[in-house]
């Protein structure tokens, strides 16, 4: 059996067609797009086409609204810093507690610099409360930045509605759509979203290429300066091959978006149902009615995620975990904590994320090994009664270790 890759929210395999589209830009058309000679004369056309391919996927009005960056993180950082630079009198930012670190890290830093950061909480299913959001909007807010879809649970936030509300209050709106683009259909031209971040490596393009969508007319201050590239909005010689690759990947994503929402979703659903039916004391986290079609995040109570991953890895299966141990931090993921998932479950969450490269057969393979993996680890767990094969009564009291 060949290895099974179910970690597509972390990163994806580059599509062969994407690689093929890129190669000429390494070996033949390697000139600087700003140069005037034959090594460069096709490059500008390649960039233009890529811009249009991205435009088609996200449904924005103009291809000049696409700014190529080096990654999702750069797009996020640029968006936030631009918004506060343009509006020096507005000292507040609204975001959520479950954003990617690429957003939270910048906000934490701004907080130290005197900004007020409103981090919207989520309920146990990972949902936002729009009423409290509305009350926060004011002329002191420089930016709302809310992710379109959560990378851990796949939960989708109502960003279109939230952007309308922000717009009505005269507040700029950015969304980190790194996990959403290519997985769910979007038509930005019909929304009030001002800025949006994309990362290539989540949709079968290479790592190290991203996009910041900037609605025409949105006030903007460049982060990287000193060059005319991207109309002066992002200086630095273009990563031509990767831009072309990202364009191709967007074209392919658009072709497959229905497949993603039917076939890929069916694989996800089957895995999820199979696991939850088969394995006691396991449950799916996040908003089950509003989720990316490719993602499921399952908590296995009384065991720890890294151990599960190690046994999965031994069985040739790649996934990831919200446990503390996989990240080197001491706390389980901030997303699990924000949803108030108990520690005995939060450390045992495993995220399976699919792509169009997966197959139903692979789902069955995972379903074959998963119950044994969980049983093996539960046998070692102080919260588990090996005799009765159930959790010990009152687990939290039965095992209450001295904090060390």
């Amino acid at each position: 059996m060949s290895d099974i890759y179910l970690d597509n929210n972390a990163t994806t395999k580059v599509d062969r067609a994407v690689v093929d589209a890129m190669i000429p830009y390494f070996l033949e058309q390697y000139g600087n797009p700003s140069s005037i000679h034959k090594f460069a004369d096709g490059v500008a056309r390649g960039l233009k086409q890529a811009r249009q391919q991205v435009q088609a996927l996200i449904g924005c009005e103009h291809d000049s609204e696409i700014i190529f960056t080096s990654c999702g993180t750069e797009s996020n950082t640029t968006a936030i810093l631009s918004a506060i630079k343009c509006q020096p009198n507005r000292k507040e930012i609204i975001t959520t507690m479950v954003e990617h670190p690429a957003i939270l890290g910048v906000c934490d830093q701004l907080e130290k610099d005197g900004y007020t950061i409103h981090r919207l909480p989520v309920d146990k299913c990972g949902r936002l409360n729009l009423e409290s959001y509305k009350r926060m909007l004011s002329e002191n807010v420089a930016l709302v930045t809310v992710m379109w879809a959560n990378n851990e649970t796949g939960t989708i936030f109502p960003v279109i509605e939230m952007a309308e509300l922000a717009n009505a209050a005269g507040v700029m709106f950015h969304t980190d759509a790194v996990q959403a683009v290519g997985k769910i259909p979007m038509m930005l031209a019909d929304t009030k979203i001002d800025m949006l971040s994309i990362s290539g490596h989540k949709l079968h393009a290479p790592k190290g290429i991203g996009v910041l969508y900037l609605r025409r007319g949105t006030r903007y201050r460049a982060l990287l300066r000193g060059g005319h590239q991207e109309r002066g909005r992002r200086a630095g010689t273009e990563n031509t091959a990767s831009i072309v690759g990202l364009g191709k990947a967007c074209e392919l994503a658009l072709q497959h978006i229905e497949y993603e929402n039917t076939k890929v979703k069916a694989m996800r659903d089957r895995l999820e149902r199979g696991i939850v039916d088969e394995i006691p004391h396991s449950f799916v986290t996040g908003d089950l009615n509003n989720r990316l079609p490719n993602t499921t995040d399952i908590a296995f109570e009384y065991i720890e995620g890294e151990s599960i991953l190690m046994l999965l890895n031994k069985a040739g299966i790649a996934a990831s975990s919200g446990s503390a141990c996989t990240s080197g931090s001491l706390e389980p993921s901030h997303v699990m904590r924000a949803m108030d998932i108990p520690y005995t479950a939060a450390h045992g969450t495993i995220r399976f994320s699919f792509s169009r490269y997966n197959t139903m057969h692979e789902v069955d393979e995972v379903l074959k090994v998963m119950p044994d993996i969980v049983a093996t680890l539960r046998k070692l767990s102080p919260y588990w009664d090996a005799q009765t094969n159930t959790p010990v009564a009152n687990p939290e009291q039965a095992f209450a270790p001295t904090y060390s």
Partner: protein
Amino acid sequence: MWDYSDKVKEHFFNPKNAGAVVEANATGEVGSISCGDALRLTLKVDPETEIILESGFQTFGCGSAIASSSVLTEIIKGMTLDEALKVTNQDIADHLEGLPPEKMHCSVMGREALQAAIANYRGEEWRDDHEEGALVCKCFAIDAVMIEEMVWANKLRTVEDVTNFTKAGGGCAACHEDIEAILEKVLAEKGEKFDPSICSKPEDKQKPAAPEKIAAVKTPLTNLQRIKKIEEVLESLRPALMADGGDVELVEVIGNTAYVNMTGACNGCQMAAMTIAGIQQRLMEVMGEFIKVVPASEMSKLVNIA
């Protein structure tokens, strides 16, 4: 993911002595469920001889936590309680052929469970003297709590001071921003202000407000003193090595293990092992404490590559 040694994997995939010992007469429970690692150790101790007849573990935790628990139960079987009390977390890590710095706390947890179990057997109350915070310095595995304590206890003022007392920040320097934040916080609590522009005055550095914590758990030398001393010894040996067309370079010191790079003629030849043994001997003579010298190539086993 972590780059675990083969020994860690062996104990993780085939754990020894899993489960609770029946008729156990000693139990130690330590760890923190919020941090995702917790361990119950049960022992059956012979009341006549105080020899540990059986030991078993139940662990909620990651691969290295399970491996540390498993290897611990093997190490202590057949020991008397007094012997078992001498087992250190470094012993546990050594039996596992090393742990990544971020995972050393798993071996600490093992040692503490053992102490707790023995205290339980003897009817004493076991107190944990060790607290753990978020890892700040990844190079030397120093956490925030340790740095905060040292800043409080020793009136540290600068990042350099912190490095001198704890080693934190002495490696790649990527954590200097975090160390400054800790300084800012602690100094604010003391009603002072952190000033990044002052440099540590030499006399400040000399003032050995005796880093108690390190001294208590390790040896009378501070880590920085130890590194300096090791450098000195290597320096003195260098001419001899160079005469043979080789050289030695200190790469890292973790606890009392010094990782060195042997270059030139020493590198890869059989003599390297002898040379390393020679260096180790010399170091121990000069420093009066146990020092282990290991080729830096061994270190890759310890380092997180993710």
